């Protein structure tokens, strides 16, 4: 009886599928599938240089599979990772996750990338962003979420702003590529800001 009452009362929110957006869904992959996809995306150096500040490098499929396996072992402890699949045709297009530095502070770092180039600039990443941020606040009960990006990644900046992230600062010359120093931007969204946006 009590169960029945609870279900009715929370139906509106809790019954919502938090893994499903309008264009994509969050999923989990076998290490084999993920490694096969990563080895393809890794060859696209522009993709790597948009998403990461570590030097671009090429790993074997075996090593990539090991990385994914290791990540999955730690899943749910301090990291929460998902693959991103399109609702239409169920295509694996990217990956996203939250990394919690200190549970006591309720703050997490967000990472996201769309490896499939045909899905850049069409709202797929932004849709996935709303899902992962929603997961952080409604499932992990975070207080805030932080992310960083290279200042030359304008597409990412626009997407993060659309989702509700605010610019919190600019680290001068944090990286250098092709002989050019660039800044990194840091953004954050507070729980109360997200709740106000999604009310």
């Amino acid at each position, binding site marked *: 009886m009590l169960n029945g009452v609870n279900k009715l009362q929370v139906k509106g929110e809790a019954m919502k599928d938090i893994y499903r957006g309008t264009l994509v869904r969050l999923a989990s992959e076998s290490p084999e599938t993920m490694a096969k996809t990563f080895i393809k995306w890794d060859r696209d150096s522009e993709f790597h240089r948009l998403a990461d500040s570590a030097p671009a490098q090429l790993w074997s499929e075996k090593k990539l599979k090991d990385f994914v396996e290791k990540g999955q072992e730690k899943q749910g402890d301090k990291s929460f990772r998902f693959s991103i699949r399109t609702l239409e045709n169920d295509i694996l297009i990217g990956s996203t996750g939250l990394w919690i530095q200190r549970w006591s502070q309720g703050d997490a770092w967000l990472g996201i990338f769309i490896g499939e180039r045909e899905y850049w600039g069409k709202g797929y990443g932004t849709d996935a962003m709303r899902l992962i941020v929603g997961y952080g606040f409604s499932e992990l009960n975070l207080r805030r979420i932080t992310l960083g990006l290279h200042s030359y990644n304008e597409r990412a900046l626009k997407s993060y702003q659309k989702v509700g992230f605010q610019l919190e600062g600019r680290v001068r*010359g944090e990286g250098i590529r092709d002989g050019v120093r660039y800044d990194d931007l840091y953004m954050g969204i507070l729980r109360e800001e997200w709740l106000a946006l999604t009310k």
Partner: protein
Amino acid sequence: MLAIQTQLFEAKDVRFGPIDHETHPEVESKWTHDAEFMRLMELKPIRPLSPAMVKKQYEAIEKEMEEDKNLYYFTIQTKEENKFIGKALIEWIDWTNGNGFLRLGIGASEFRRLGLGSQALSMLLRFAFDELNLYRVTAVVPAYNEGAIKLFQKFGFMEEVRRRKAIHRDNEFWDLVSFGLLNAEWREQVTGQG
């Protein structure tokens, strides 16, 4: 001009030294029982550590220094009595991009507010810029640590990032502030040439 005759690890009243696995664990264990100091130094939940636990940490630190090569860790000692009073370090060094994160603290409370942290920071910056050849350094400080903020501002650090309400302490919310100093800015201060 090369300045190899100017000692890297000697300042007016303090010097940098290595870890001493015999005598330091006892001293540092005492500091970890000082909650006020620990909450200024650490963002993670603090807890007191026994000398044996500190010794384990030292072993992990030297292992990381040897294997990952992205950490430089110094103890701060008084020149007069060779007393271990604090620590100074550069961590998470990203060699490709030439940046690293600084941290320092004077654990021995009777040696605070004497300008010794300032002397240690001076040495740490010269080490970062003239020995490691970093392009920039970052220091991350919670907004309630006014002493540290004043120290970094005195050395010309610029506030770059302010993570709003990132720190929750005693039912209050504080910003987490990052300060940055570029090699060229530091050089201009010490030599008058950018």
